């Protein structure tokens, strides 16, 4: 049905090998949607050139966004446009060539370096409200969210009913919605919970930070997430979401799975594929 990748490329420049990695990632995953955070116009423009070789009918389109996430979509996608936006997110009405219309939400939330967890939780709650508003106006909830939330799947803003309401269980998400304090809130299914582990056979998260002197330190974080609304569950299977640690044979991590910024970014890409 559709394949989407999201990558916070950590402000890499066009001559630092990142363009090749992004285009190889597109080929490897056969991605229809490429969402990039911390990505300059110059990098996304160079990626677009590489994805649309001269002399051939162009495959990808830049969908203009006013947020700080750049979005490339395999086209033609006439009518696809940004429905709502903020510095931290874009809500896009995606009209793919094949298949039903989707609502695509791409996010790069404000950093924990500049704002505290409470602030980010509040921003995620505001984002959830914007998504529900878009779904109400389009009268469907075929919604995919992907991005760097700067919050873990267990953060209040991701879990709370008035927040993204992302739950770890497909069976729970399939109930559709839940009433909290006399208000009805739709679920998101958050498949990222499956990646919590011991980090032996795969990365224990999508990014790693030493806690240094802080009392609470998770080391590994799953800030880069994909969430889907329950109506898309029939198109989902567990192995259709992955944290990408290898692109075209090139490892994006050191031997301990920590992202290797000398190769890629301090974040690893995430990929979601929905199939029939």
């Amino acid at each position, binding site marked *: 049905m559709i394949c989407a990748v999201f990558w916070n490329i950590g402000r890499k420049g*066009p001559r630092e090998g990142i363009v090749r990695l992004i285009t190889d990632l597109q080929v490897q995953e056969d991605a229809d949607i490429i969402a990039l955070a911390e990505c300059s*116009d*110059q990098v996304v*423009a*160079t990626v*677009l*050139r590489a994805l*649309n*070789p*001269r*002399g*051939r*009918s*162009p495959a*990808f*389109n*830049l*969908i*203009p966004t006013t947020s700080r996430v750049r979005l490339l979509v395999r*086209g*033609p996608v*006439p009518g696809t446009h940004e429905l709502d936006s903020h510095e931290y997110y874009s809500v896009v009405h995606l009209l793919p060539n094949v298949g039903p219309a989707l609502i695509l939400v791409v996010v790069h939330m404000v950093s924990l370096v500049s704002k505290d967890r409470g602030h980010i939780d509040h921003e995620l709650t505001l984002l959830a409200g914007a998504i529900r508003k878009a779904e109400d106006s389009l009268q469907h909830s075929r919604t995919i969210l992907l991005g760097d939330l700067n919050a873990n799947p267990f953060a209040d803003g991701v879990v709370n009913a008035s927040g993204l309401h992302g739950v770890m269980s497909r069976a729970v998400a399939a109930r559709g919605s839940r009433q909290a304090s006399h208000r009805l809130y739709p679920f998101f299914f958050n498949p990222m919970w499956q990646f919590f582990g011991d980090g032996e056979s795969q990365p224990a998260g999508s990014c790693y930070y030493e806690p240094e002197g802080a009392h609470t330190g998770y080391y590994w974080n799953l800030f880069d997430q994909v969430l889907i609304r329950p109506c898309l569950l029939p198109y989902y299977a567990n192995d259709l979401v992955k944290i990408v640690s290898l692109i075209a044979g090139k490892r994006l991590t050191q031997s301990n799975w920590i992202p290797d910024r000398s190769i890629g970014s301090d974040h690893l890409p995430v990929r979601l594929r929905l199939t029939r």
Partner: protein
Amino acid sequence: MSTPIPDLWPSDLVGPPTTTPVAILRRQGDALGTHTQNFVLGEVETRPIVNGTQFEHNFVIQAPFLRFRFPLLRVTHGVNPYPLSMVETDLTKSQAPSSQFWHREAKTELEFQDQLREFFALSAVKSLIGSLIAQSNEIAPDEHR
């Protein structure tokens, strides 16, 4: 058992194949994207007007890196695709006081194609598209040119 309800439409409902104006416009939009690696492209937006007795096709020029998206040409026709009329928009209209909008009528598909070719060759159109391409290329120079 009830009798099946017959199909009452005439057998010659679908006439001889014609390349519609909207198909020709879409092709021009794609061709522009091919020339520019989708840094500048055209899209067609269609809507019925005059209570559904006419169709209006807006050929919209987009330069996504510049956040530029404006109609360049408006084509209208009745229920049948030909004859049609086409008119430029403010985007390319001369600013001279007595100047009029460039407009043409086309009775056939071939006439439409000839007139589109004439329109795309207008200096105002070439200048606009050239400027959009140049400004878009500033973001990431095309190293193969």
